[in-house]
């Protein structure tokens, strides 16, 4: 079944603190809630310090109210950092799409999940800010699975950033993320 026909979609955004796991989860939740009339939840897990330790967000999106707020069977897992991989490994199912930041994650089990690996840090750097790494990845994931519309992602990102320069960077990041599909 194509993802956009599913009633329910689970994604884990994982990395280390400071990589924008929370803000990108909020963008997804807003895209689904505010622009598609869907329901979404997000719960976050951190290490004890905010920066540099494992951090993940579980984002669940559905056509109806979501009962349980933790990912049980993720459709997609985004892994931005080596430190995150061992922590999410037990959530990788055969059909799970694993989007990996090649620059920071090197030790992965090639047999687990459907792996899409990109040098996301390099790409973000090219765009002009490492901060855009999440948006590039989200755009790729949205394009790949179509669980929300591109326009919803664009609207949520536009709404999130009031600073014109940052907004422009993130718009470029979305386009770059979609370009990765080609």
């Amino acid at each position, binding site marked *: 079944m194509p993802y956009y026909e599913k009633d329910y979609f689970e994604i884990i955004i994982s990395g280390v603190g400071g990589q924008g796991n929370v803000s990108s989860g909020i963008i997804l*939740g807003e895209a689904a809630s505010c622009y598609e009339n869907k*329901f979404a*939840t997000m719960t976050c897990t951190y290490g004890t310090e905010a920066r540099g330790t494992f951090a993940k967000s579980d984002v669940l999106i559905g056509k109806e109210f979501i009962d349980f707020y933790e990912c049980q069977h993720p459709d997609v897992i985004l892994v931005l950092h080596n430190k995150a991989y061992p922590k999410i490994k037990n959530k990788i199912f055969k059909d799970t799409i694993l989007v990996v930041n090649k620059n920071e994650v090197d030790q992965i089990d090639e047999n687990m999940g459907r792996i899409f690996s990109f040098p996301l840090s390099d790409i973000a750097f090219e765009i002009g800010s490492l901060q855009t790494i999440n948006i590039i990845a989200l755009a790729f994931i949205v394009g790949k699975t179509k669980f929300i519309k591109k326009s919803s992602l664009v609207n949520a990102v536009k709404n999130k950033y009031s600073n014109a320069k940052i907004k422009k960077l993130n718009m470029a990041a979305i386009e770059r993320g979609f370009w990765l599909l080609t």
Partner: protein
Amino acid sequence: MMFASKEGRYFLQGNIAVGEAAIMSGARFFAGYPITPSSEIAEHASVSLPDVGGTYIQMEDEIGSIAAVIGASMTGVKAYTATSGPGISLMGENIGLACMVEAPCVIITVQRAGPSTGLATKPAQGDFLQIRHGTHGDHMIIALSPASVQECFDLTIQAFNFSERFRCPVFLVLDGIIGKMYETVEIPKRDKIEIVNRKKATGQPEKFQPYKTDEDLVPPFAPFGSSFIARANGSGHGIDGYPSADANNHEQLVYRLINKIERYKEEISLFKKFNTSDADILMISYGCSVRPAMAAMKKAREEGIKVGVLQLQTLWPFPIDIIKSFISKVRLVLIPELSLGQLKSEIIKYSKDIPVIGINKLGGISIQPEDILNVLYKEIAK
């Protein structure tokens, strides 16, 4: 800067939804001491209250915070504070003061794993009895508990309304999961939100008696600064607000403070039921643990097991009649909660010979649907 000043759909954190609803309820004063996992409520208040002409103050501790909230309330302003279990421990004495002087206020507590500092950033539901019995002396307390971000918004409005109507402190009980999670929330139009304000004193100011009640056992309110001279008294007092150590007077006063709430218990007892009509197994839960219970219920139903969920939105006064009526129709009761069975300890008082099984978890992590299903299967197999 409010986040949801207009009606519509939002994706908000539970703590923020509480803050938004507080402002919409008309709250204009917040005094608090930041504590994880409630701090976003204080941060939100510090930013939002000035925009609506309100005041935020960060006090030196939780004792001072609740004291300032009570003081502010007596000027006629809707006031609130937010904390977690350790803060409630410190507020204990003055929660009784709020009951006794009949200061409407809302106390938000976002439960975390204790005892003591415990797991400061991790959720729990171990303060169920603290909320009821945290202050000394015979008294009654109203406590509401949301299980979603939408309910964070809706029940905050309700908490302010109850506190105004009954002139008493009202607890809004979150936990680290519901407070910190983000979720879709629908903010209604302002004119669709019912806002209750406390009854005002009327008549001749010279004849005003600050604790003379109406038929509903609630005394009309006169704010400090009005020509109705008000006296708030935390010691035993007569209807004039002056101290009284008379035995009969004390008995009447304490009974009234309890009965003004007890009498309206049916209206106060809010709950939700899911698939209970044909259920022969019932899960009773509140707050975050409702969510895995819902998921487990759906899974069990797919397998033909007739499970229902009763979600308590009102924790206190304990909805005895509701509990009794639902329990009497089933053969098994399961109680998922992030504590060692505090809700269960209350329910078993009314369950007679129907088996009641707790599903309990410590460690600051959520109950999983499988945790519930495992117990369910085991019990059915018996």
